[in-house]
């Protein structure tokens, strides 16, 4: 393909271009400013922040707020820092993401390749679950967790997130597997492979992009969840988001803004890393099947 044919947009004038880039840069700065403020202030001593001017670079550079936020800050009543809650979040997010992704994959496989009478209705209901607001399920979910003796535990949170994520993961995998050639399943059936063997040997090796999409989606949602964490967790199973809230809103003593900023960045870091590492698959995966060729 020649170089000129890749340029499909109409040539615009220099003035228009300057205008476009100005607007883009303004918006980029506008969206990056909060991150900048957080980063800059998380490495300043508290006195510098108190003097005002949040946008200034630090005069004295220190990692003290980060260390404090991680290890010694007062969360609620205990001076434990965010560390144990970070671990809580990991203990919750890893199984929740793994289980919901796996179950979504199996659901998608069954709904496309082992269709049963009424499979459309089942899928419709699962899709509907994506649109149920969190608040509506709080009380019934609390009741169920109580019945299962999972109230206030990390396992309980895992269950909540798996149930809530299943609609989305099923949707992702169903749409992906829908485009997967059925003849391959038939060929494997005639070759003598059974339900799970076909899934493991034929479908899963081709599911890379959609697994990445689902994992990013689920990881971000589960990690960032505050409502379920605040509602269903005990002190020793609270996730990072709830702990961050407790750190920031604790009313005793001075407000250590630098520690708060560091804590907030720590809380956001895992989703940021997941997105940076596999983000290009996310866009590619979301687009998969949208356009042919």
């Amino acid at each position: 393909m020649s170089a000129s044919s890749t340029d499909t947009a109409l040539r615009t004038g220099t003035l228009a271009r300057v205008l476009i880039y100005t607007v883009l840069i303004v918006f980029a700065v506008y969206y990056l400013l909060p991150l900048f403020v957080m980063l800059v202030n998380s490495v300043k001593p508290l006195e510098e922040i108190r003097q005002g001017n949040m946008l200034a670079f630090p005069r004295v550079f220190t990692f003290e707020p980060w260390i404090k936020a991680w290890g010694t800050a007062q969360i609620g009543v205990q001076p434990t820092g965010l560390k144990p809650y970070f671990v809580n979040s990991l203990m919750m997010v890893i199984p929740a993401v793994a289980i919901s992704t796996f179950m979504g994959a199996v659901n998608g496989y069954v709904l496309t390749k082992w269709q049963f009478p009424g499979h459309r209705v089942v899928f419709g209901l699962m899709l509907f679950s994506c649109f149920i607001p969190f608040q509506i399920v709080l009380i019934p979910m609390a009741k169920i967790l109580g019945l299962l003796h999972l109230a206030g535990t990390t396992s309980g949170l895992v269950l909540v997130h798996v149930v809530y994520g299943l609609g989305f993961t099923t949707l992702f995998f169903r749409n992906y597997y829908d485009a997967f050639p059925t003849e391959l399943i038939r060929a494997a059936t005639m070759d003598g492979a059974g339900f799970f063997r076909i899934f493991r040997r034929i479908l899963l090796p081709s599911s890379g992009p959609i697994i990445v999409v689902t994992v990013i989606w689920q990881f971000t949602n589960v990690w960032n969840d505050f409502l379920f964490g605040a509602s269903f967790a005990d002190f020793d199973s609270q996730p990072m988001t709830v702990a961050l809230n407790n750190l920031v809103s604790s009313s005793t003593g001075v407000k250590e803004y630098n520690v708060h900023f560091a804590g907030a960045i720590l809380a956001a870091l895992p989703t940021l890393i997941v997105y940076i590492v596999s983000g290009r698959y996310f866009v590619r995966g979301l687009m998969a099947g949208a356009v042919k060729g």
Partner: protein
Amino acid sequence: MSFLEIKDLHKRFGSVEVLKGVDIGIEEGGFLVLVGPSGCGKSTLLNSIAGLESITSGEIRIDGKIVNDLHPSKRDIAMVFQSYALYPSMSVGENIAFGLEMRGVSKAEREAAIGKVATMLQIEHLLKRRPGQLSGGQRQRVAMGRALVRDPKLFLFDEPLSNLDAKLRVDMRTEIKRLHHKLGTTIVYVTHDQIEAMTLATQIAVLKDGILQQVGSPDEVYSKPANMFVADFMGSPTMNLIEATISQGTDCLSVEIPQEDRSLSLPVPNAPLSLRDYTGRPVVLGIRPEDITDLDGADPRAEHIAQADCSVEVVEPTGADTFVVTQLGGKEVTGRMRNASGLSVGSRVPFAFNMGKTHFFDPATELRIA
């Protein structure tokens, strides 16, 4: 008894009946081609034999054993799919061996089997590659290798050549025929291409709307089509079907084709009794393009050549032959001429009709009369 035997097979999808009572059999080592236009039920029939579709009623026997409710993998059959259906995440070798692996064949035996099949199909150098790195023809070979390696009782081919370009298709067709000849396997082959059907089959089954129209050897189906559908479907260009009437001539029956000015009368020598009953009644005259020629090109062994002047409407040279279109009985009629030089559109030239190779059909029932 036939090796593969299908009796009164019915298949419904909801309220739609796709197969309406199909009876076919094929001998061991035979090559049965199911041919018909799209939507005729030929792929459904093949999938029923494979066990990929359940059947509504009827009976399928393979080697004397009823397989109606047997799982596809237990029927001892292998299938080559239209899209080849190669597993994208496995190498060519793994693809070929997958069926053996699922059946618990040891690795050493698998390797030996792969090697043998790869040599037969000349794909040894491809064994390490992924299907995505192969060309269409190579994928086709791998798909056949995957079927061959299991050495099943019955091979099923579902339009295996339809995704190849024209030249490769002809090559692979020859290759499939050679393999069949060499291995003596029993094959059921689905296609919508009547030329593939003619070249490959020992038995052709023509299907339309889920009903079997005719089963027979390629020669039978071609030279004695059972009805107008088969006559029209088999052969390229298609058979000319002309509305006409039968009348009693001076010494034999003749067929009258109405023309604008006066009707064209062609003698029908040695007309069978069945055609005599139609004297004075309308029939459909069928005559293949190769039986309408220029005078020099007429079959020298033909006993009854009738001549008529017709005006040339279209001239289509194909290289070896030239197809000439004229009008007879209000229909376009194609003839095949050896020597087309001097033919110009609009001119009237003599056409030679080989009256020994005509077909007659009842216009109401569309069935063959003679």
